[in-house]
């Protein structure tokens, strides 16, 4: 920790600009993720869910009964849509241009999120890989646990600026930094 981290002026960030060096608590913005909306036809909910969990290099996020978002940082939306084409009863719409993917991590992550997400994120209540639609910074989005101290947030594109700014504000007391990830 540098001298400036220990003796920060109240206007430090506003005068010198926010630091982009990664801190322990960090908010990463995925530059071009693939995010697909998937609905299951009536009676096919279980088989579609199983097929979605079997897709490699992508993770399904639970939105509601018979509805998921399939998220990938490495595959293109076209590639994923092709992979889903064979799943019987799955209705797929590419949402990549309409959604933004954020990843927030660090030892204080739950303290930060407790200020703007009303979901119990204790590991016993919200296990690894679990996801839920919820209000995130007063706006509807999806939150998923991707590590012990790491969560992924999917938010509609038009709300992304507001959610991003509020997350930074909530994380400021914990030195939350941010950058883009590929």
């Amino acid at each position, binding site marked *: 920790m540098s001298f400036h981290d220990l003796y920060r002026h109240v206007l430090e960030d506003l005068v010198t600009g926010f630091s982009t060096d990664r801190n322990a608590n960090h908010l990463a913005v995925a530059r071009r993720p693939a995010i697909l909306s998937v609905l299951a036809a009536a009676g096919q909910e279980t088989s579609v869910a199983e097929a979605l969990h079997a897709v490699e290099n992508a993770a399904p996020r639970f939105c*509601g009964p018979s*509805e998921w978002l399939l998220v990938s940082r490495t595959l293109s939306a076209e590639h994923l849509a092709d992979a889903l084409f064979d799943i019987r009863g799955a209705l797929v719409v590419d949402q990549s241009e309409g959604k933004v993917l954020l990843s927030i991590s660090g030892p204080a992550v739950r303290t930060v999120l407790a200020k703007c997400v009303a979901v119990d994120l204790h590991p016993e*209540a919200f296990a690894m890989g679990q996801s839920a639609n919820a209000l995130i910074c007063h706006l509807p989005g999806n939150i998923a646990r991707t590590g012990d101290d790491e969560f992924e947030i999917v938010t509609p594109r038009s709300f992304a600026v507001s959610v991003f700014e509020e997350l930074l504000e909530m994380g400021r007391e914990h030195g939350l930094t941010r950058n883009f990830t590929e």
Partner: protein
Amino acid sequence: MASLITCPHCGTRPKEEFSIRGAAGPERPSPTARDEDWHRYVYVRDNPKGRYQEHWHHVAGCRRWLVVDRDNLSHEVFGVTDAAEFERARVAK
């Protein structure tokens, strides 16, 4: 008002995630029912004090319609069911 609602799909959430439509009790008349029946179904409500069933929409969560069985005087919630299941159970009766 009950401030925590346990959605059968999403778990316990604050009321801010929901929007409330109104009483779930009135049954939709048949299309050929008399005008008086339709008038009663569309416009007339009992406005009870105490326990009753109400339609809630989980707007910021699963976006499903729910039926919340609650007491509007004591704020106690007795149960929450998916509106589709509620309707199926009513038809089955």
